[in-house]
């Protein structure tokens, strides 16, 4: 039977990544991760360790649901989202979504910067990347874009 510290070291990355995916804020992801491991600490004697990391992820998911319920109350989210945008996407958008040269991280950085209009700092805060990483991914993607569209040279 593994100790708490061993279990923490074994599962913390998976739990953190999952937490980041449900909260999209690094500090909230750390809070959720911390809460999940505290719950594990409390229940260590009773828990079937073969259920990890699923047990931890379920705690994160439940806590994330609570967190989102509070956010919805505190912030007024638009409830009418446009289901489908205008039919004709510009060439840049088709390239962003379909280019085999882009990785998922490039697509997300490009979309957050040029579609959702975020600054690099805002992109970093929401994705958990550093600002330097965001800048690097954007530079790389823009180089590919320039090649693909043959402009700006």
């Amino acid at each position: 039977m593994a100790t708490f510290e061993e279990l923490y070291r074994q599962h913390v990355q998976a739990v953190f990544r999952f937490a980041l995916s449900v909260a999209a804020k690094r500090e909230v992801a750390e809070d959720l991760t911390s809460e999940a491991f505290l719950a594990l600490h409390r229940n260590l004697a009773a828990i079937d360790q073969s259920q990890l990391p699923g047990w931890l992820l379920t705690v994160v998911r439940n806590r994330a649901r609570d967190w989102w319920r509070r956010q919805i109350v505190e912030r007024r989210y638009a409830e009418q989202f446009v289901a489908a945008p205008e039919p004709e996407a510009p060439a840049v958008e088709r390239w962003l979504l379909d280019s085999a040269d882009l990785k998922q991280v490039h697509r997300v950085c490009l979309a957050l910067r040029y579609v959702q209009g975020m600054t690099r700092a805002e992109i970093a805060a929401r994705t958990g990347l550093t600002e330097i990483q965001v800048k690097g991914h954007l530079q790389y993607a823009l180089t590919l874009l320039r090649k693909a569209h043959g402009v700006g040279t």
Partner: protein
Amino acid sequence: MNTDRHDWDREERERLAHLEDQIDAMRRRHVNAPPYELLRAAHADVLPPDLETAVTEHIAASPMSRTLAEGLGDEAPVLSADEQERLFARIMKEALKESAPSTAWGWLRPAFIGAGIVAVASLVWVVSREPGERIDPPETQVVVALPPAAPPFLLPFEKPDVRLGMAALTWRGSTPADTAGNQLLTDLKPGLDAYRQGDYATANRELTALAGRYPGAVEILFYQGVSRLFLGDYAGASTAFEAAGASSDRTFEADIAWYRAVAEQRSGNVVQARARLEAICNRSVRLQPDNGDVARACTALEQLRASANPR
């Protein structure tokens, strides 16, 4: 979030020269799309039901939002060694605080202080109130603290050993005994070695890089899926198993169905996972009643039916 062209740096202006109109058009098309954090939360099925439905419907209709909802994939950040240590120290501090016995009478001190503050505040309020002012009862807000829910039954998964199908072993005419000229096996080695050693991040990266080059190699997709399961990337695992299931190579058929159900359940698609287990159980009971895979699926199905959903 009001970045506009005027906040572009010199490099952006150069590289996006002559594309400004297209960028503007792209932004206009998605101006009413949900923000990134909502897309990610809907993808993980953690939003309140009505909002979950609205955002999920939007994601289904918009490839741009779908791209954002899927997140960073393999590039998702992890905690640095320092951050891991800091978080561990924080957890242990909280855990010790919870388990520390309180000193005799010490726990009453906050109660006395709190009572004192309430008494003084009440006195000040009563004294300062104008005569004849009507006193409305305060609006009460009842907050019910739910006890932490017990995690539901989760389909267990173990690390399957590395196996290779005949198609891989005989890739491009090579025989199982003579793999020297078998480029697929050469390319598979780094990924499968990392998988054997439990380095699932490397395994996933290596295997993902191969998936496009060897679209028919079911081993790549299967071990990619299992690696993602161990990384906690259940949606990614589900995608890999789906692709593996579409392969004409049936070497991993039974395992793919099982692990796909595991990935689906853990990524929140409980109904789909249950349907998949039912399919394994019903189909295989007829054909192979003593099969161990079937027994595993049928037993899991019973446990899944019996378990309560997580709150």
